[in-house]
């Protein structure tokens, strides 16, 4: 398996990241090394092993359907890069 720089660029785009060409090449190399290492794990026969969906073996707990005090409105908007008195404000998302 081999990751191309085009694939790195595609994944970066999905994560809203931008890289120069030389960075893309470095990242592709890093990713390929990681994948090679993973391939090694593939050599093990795991046919009889249940797929692991979660790393912590917890007993499942539900939360009762009850409400608590919400976060204070001003407090909630305080950390926003931009807001008016009611809303979070973001650059326009549709033309």
């Amino acid at each position, binding site marked *: 398996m081999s990751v191309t720089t085009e694939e790195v660029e595609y994944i970066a785009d*999905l994560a*809203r990241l931008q890289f120069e060409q030389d960075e893309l090449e470095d990242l592709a190399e890093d990713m390929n090394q990681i994948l090679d290492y993973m391939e090694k794990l593939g050599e093990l026969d795991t046919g009889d092993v249940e797929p692991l*969906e*979660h*790393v*912590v073996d*917890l007993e*499942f*707990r*539900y*939360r*009762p*359907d*009850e*409400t*608590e005090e*919400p*976060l204070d*409105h001003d407090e*909630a*908007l305080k*950390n926003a890069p*931009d807001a*008016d008195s*009611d*809303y*979070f*404000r*973001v*650059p*326009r*998302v*549709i033309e």
Partner: protein
Amino acid sequence: MSTIDHQNYEAVIGLEVHAQLLTESKAFTSISTAFGASPNTQISPLCIGHPGTLPVLNENLVRYTIKMGLATDCEIARKSIFARKNYFYPDLPKGYQISQYETPICHDGTLHIDMEDYEKDIGIKRIHMEEDAGKSIHDQDPHNSLIDLNRAGVPLIEIVSEPDISTPEEAYAYLGRIKQIVTYLGVCDGNMEEGSLRCDANVSVKPRDRKEFGTRTELKNLNSFRNVERALRYEIERQIEVIESGGEVIQHTLLWDPQKQQTRQMRTKEEAHDYRYFPEPDIPPVVVTESMIEEERERLPEMPDVRRQRFIEEFELSADDAYRLTEEREVADFYESIVEQVENPQSVSNLVLTEVLRVLNERSIGIEDFPVSTGRLAELIQLREDDKISSSAQTEIFDAMLEEPEADKSAEDYAKEMNLMQVSDTDFLEPIIDEVISSNPDEVKRYQEGKKGLIGFFIGQTMEKSRGKANPKMVREMISEKLENGDQES
């Protein structure tokens, strides 16, 4: 008008319905889901995507979904997992939606629909749990979008049908059925215009004699039952025309424009999605125990089909009346609460189906907002049953009660006040009847000679002279007795 013979084609339709659940609190945090709060006041650090927050699953989200699964004959997974669906949009501050992907909690069910001249079972592929996003507002500020995160994290279920639906009418019936079931179960208010129920459709067409499905398109923005039907009809037509003119249907996501009554393609940027699902590491696999399933099974209300059948048997209603009365759970409850107080269930059915539903229709309100209590309606019906008022008087009093919904007056008070009580008092009726008989000697003679049909004439005259207040049954008895006796005297 197109000249294409559509009979040669058939459509293959699958629907994805999102239903907002009526839980008290959000899916993964104890914040109220109540509708209509001012913007960004029903939020916690989790809802606004702050680091270090952890989701904790609401038990009722799981229980309500199990209920829906049981009501649609689904298999209930004893273990299912949540997954992250990754995409960027400002109303989703975490950068992912918590949803279910490979292992939905309910799968392989069926939903029965009744069409005008046939019935059909539509397969339910899966029902899964997920959270809603916030709301973006684009029309208040020319340079910015405004974000309200009150809705972020409100629990949803997504109900995915098999591609078993063949016509826009079936799609409409299927949606109606989903709405009926969620409202009977009380897990969702079923309001499509307000977005508590949302529907996306996948549709393709193929020549009847071909087995493989054609290329499908996805329709979004279908925010009413009628729009679903119209958009599907439009899109089926469009696809057939594309194929007939030698073109190829391209797999797209299309938006329905209700103003223009046509579909338009979403910009490619809007539909370029690669969600990179992976198991949600913050929530362990959801375990559903046998006892949870049994508890929910026991809590299931009587479902519409069963209730309809019981109405037919227990109250001796026609199939059609029983169908209309059980279509909405609230109407059926309303009906039954009157029936408990009145002797004749059919007379209750008549009043509810003609008068009450007419008023709901005229005022565009639900039965929960019907102004007159079931107790007062029961009195009114009983008054008619006891022959104390005529059927036209019943309607008059019904209208009067509607005018004064809060009045502390019984149906009988109205009848007296409006002078509508039927009179069965012989002292009152006798002089009127005597006058009618003595002023119509010719008719008396013909009656006594055998023209018994004339009894109607005498009753009519008496009713008129009593201004409709006479009890017609009583009048009939008295007149016929007098005329027969007269026969003996002569």
